């Protein structure tokens, strides 16, 4: 068990270092932030600013300095906001996490019952409807879904606010938008793993014992069918954070994603680096937790 955890932790570390390195390299290849900070200034003023921001050093030196500081939680000051980038990101993190968590919950709340039901009633109307909706949901880009939901629920029916993050009502549409992105995939996983399981001998045995159908499904079949779902949920969490970037922009939500998008436009290196780093940490941590959960759910792994 300990060996397992250590192995996973090392893998985590590698992923985080990789993400940091790639972000750093792409950013620094993408242009000169000083030209954006002071577009009309003469070259001498710009050179002075580059000096002050440490942008004149060789890339390797800049990277070493960045990693050194990042380890102490210091990602430097935002070029534009002139306050620590870490604070800017952390200020917005709860919003993004709340949006992501709510969407994941909603997606699971839809995927589990519907997925189980359509597996059990395979080929019937509900199953057909669900499978069709899955295709529809998966082929709609988040961006478009968001705008369509706004048009229907806010502009047409006046039920919910268009954008913002000020009341619980304003949380509904972004959460729904983000769920349509994840729910279909989860639903498909639930359905197919459920189909695998309900054909197995032990399920037939349970039925033969005279256990009621829904207990067979709920207590015996679902437990085993849930394993792949757990894995996919972990993976989807990262995708959801990515989807939150777009959702936050469409719904004008003050989250990390929108902050990073703005910072990329302005080449605000410290903010992008801090944002990507912290998001990566979260994804990696969640996946680590999922790995542990998996061990708990599936004793076979512990033996390995």
């Amino acid at each position, binding site marked *: 068990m300990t060996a397992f955890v250590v192995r996973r932790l090392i893998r985590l570390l590698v992923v985080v270092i990789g993400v940091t390195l790639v972000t750093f390299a792409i950013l620094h290849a*993408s*242009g*000169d*932030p000083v*030209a*954006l*900070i*002071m*577009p*009309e*200034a*003469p*070259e*001498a*003023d710009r050179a*002075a*600013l580059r000096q*002050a921001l440490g942008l004149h050093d060789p890339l390797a030196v800049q990277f070493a300095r960045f990693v050194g500081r990042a380890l102490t939680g210091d990602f430097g000051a*935002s070029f*534009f*906001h*002139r*306050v620590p980038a870490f604070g800017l990101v952390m*200020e*917005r993190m709860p919003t993004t996490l709340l949006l992501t968590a709510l969407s994941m919950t909603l997606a699971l*709340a839809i995927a*589990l*019952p519907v997925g189980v039901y359509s597996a059990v009633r395979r080929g019937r109307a509900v199953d057909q409807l669900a499978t069709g909706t899955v295709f529809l949901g998966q082929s709609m880009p988040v961006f478009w879904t968001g*705008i369509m939901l*706004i*048009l229907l629920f*806010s*502009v047409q029916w*006046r*039920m*919910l*606010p*268009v*954008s*913002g*993050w*000020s*009341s*619980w*009502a304003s949380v*509904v549409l972004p959460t729904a938008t983000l769920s349509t992105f994840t729910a279909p995939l989860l639903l498909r996983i639930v359905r197919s793993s459920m189909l695998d399981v309900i054909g197995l001998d032990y399920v037939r045995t349970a039925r033969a014992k005279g256990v009621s159908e829904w207990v067979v499904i709920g207590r015996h079949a679902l437990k085993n069918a849930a394993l792949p779902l757990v894995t996919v949920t972990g993976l989807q969490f990262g995708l959801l954070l990515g989807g939150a970037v777009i959702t936050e*922009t*469409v*719904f*004008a939500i*003050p989250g990390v994603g*929108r*902050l990073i*998008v*703005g910072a*990329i*436009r*302005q*080449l605000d290196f410290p903010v992008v680096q801090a944002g990507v780093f912290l998001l990566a940490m979260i994804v990696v941590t969640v996946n680590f937790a999922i790995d542990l959960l998996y061990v708990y759910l599936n004793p076979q792994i512990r033996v390995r």
Partner: protein
Amino acid sequence: MRLRSLPLLVLALVLAVASLTDAQPKDTLTIALPSHAPTLDPHMHFERVGVLVNINMFDSLLHRSPKLEYEPGLATSWKALNDTTWEFKLRRGVKFHNGEPLTAEDVKYSFDRVTEPGKEKKKSPQYGNIRAIKEVRIVDPDTIHIVTDKPFPLLLERLVYFCIVPKKHIEKVGDDAFGASAPVGTGPWKFVEWKRDQYIRLEAFDGYWRGKPPFKYLVVRAIPEVATQIAEIKTGGVDLIRSVSADILPELKAHPQTYVSSAPILRVHQVEFDMRVPPFDKKLVRQAANYAIDKQTLIQKIMGGLGTQVATVVQPPAFGFDPEVKPYPYDPKKAKELLAQAGYPNGVDVTLHSAEIAVRPQFEAIAQMLTEVGIRVNARVWDPGPAWNKFFQADGKATNGAYFTWGNYSVFDADAVLHPVYHSEVGGWIGKHYTRVEGLDKLIDEGRSTLNRDARKRTYAQIQRMIREEAPSIFLFTQYDTLAISKRVEYAARGDEWLWLFDARPKR
């Protein structure tokens, strides 16, 4: 368990929906901007979205009427004493939001804060606007003198947006707090609350010297997505949105709750050539490109008719504009002839760049028109960040040309477009890398070195004839600023792209 709590969840949602009030309180004016500037300190950024907020909280020495004429602001009168010294009389009885009276000390402090005399590194990004100011002198409590290092004809233009800030207050709270949580000005609205990336909330200042603004509250929401802004204005979530593009104009004009107001502005469109390398080092090729563009069709088909053809980059409302210089006509035949004369009978391949997503349709249409006469364009659109790198840092690497729009920072003077766009020396902006027209630098310098209006007009007339002939750019059109406004608010778009919301009134 999960299934049992589902009805509860639904109930909660329904309740949330029921408690929702989307109608705005009558005394609140809400506008949407794509983002907030990083600070509310009017001297520490140069973003349009910040300027639009700052002008409603702070005053400058001069103001501009909706007809774009100078009006007294915090200065009641002004005159040039000689070529480099200006005198300003200050308004009496003006109060800051914190109750302190405005003094000549505050005015001097505001300028010194940006010019930082004696300091090598300046922290204000607006320093370039007023770098000509050498000294601000307090003559008596109601009079100041501004001394420039050489004749500076743009001074008054620059003073229309140069906010006066309270010295004592800033020295007490510090620069950072002033910009983040404690901005204090003399303007129509005072600061209440700023939720970054959400909204800025301002409240009417009872002691405002012009009188109380008609709306008690001003809320500035940050909504990055255009489609979302449009949905908001249709449902009454906001009262005003900016930069409405031509394709959605008819929809917002016809909507029962909104109307549209537009005004011609300075923003001029052009494709600037890299004149250092072939083929645009040849005058004939540059002229051919100008003949190849059907500007009228672009304005009608892509911009909804909201554009004005221009002969050069100097805009009709700018000081120094010469109506005698006429735009290139659309003449593709002539374009082909010129191209052949220049030594490209079989055409030529070029790459053009653009860093402005908003003009992509125009850019692609122009690329197509050029290709049709034989200047085969590979059109590339970039995000602003990488674009700057591409065009300006890559000195010596040819790029052929770039589509730019330039808004003069709302300065109504030919110098404010000619210098950044064409001057090839330090201080020049694009021109430094692209433009090589013999004698042009000297004329631009001449235009900015005297206060004599007639002499300046003559110089700018000469420049416009020269660049019309030399064609350092494809000259296109100026555009309009288009606002969509809720019918419960009365307001009109301005030619300087300002949102001077003191003029906005509730409609009955």
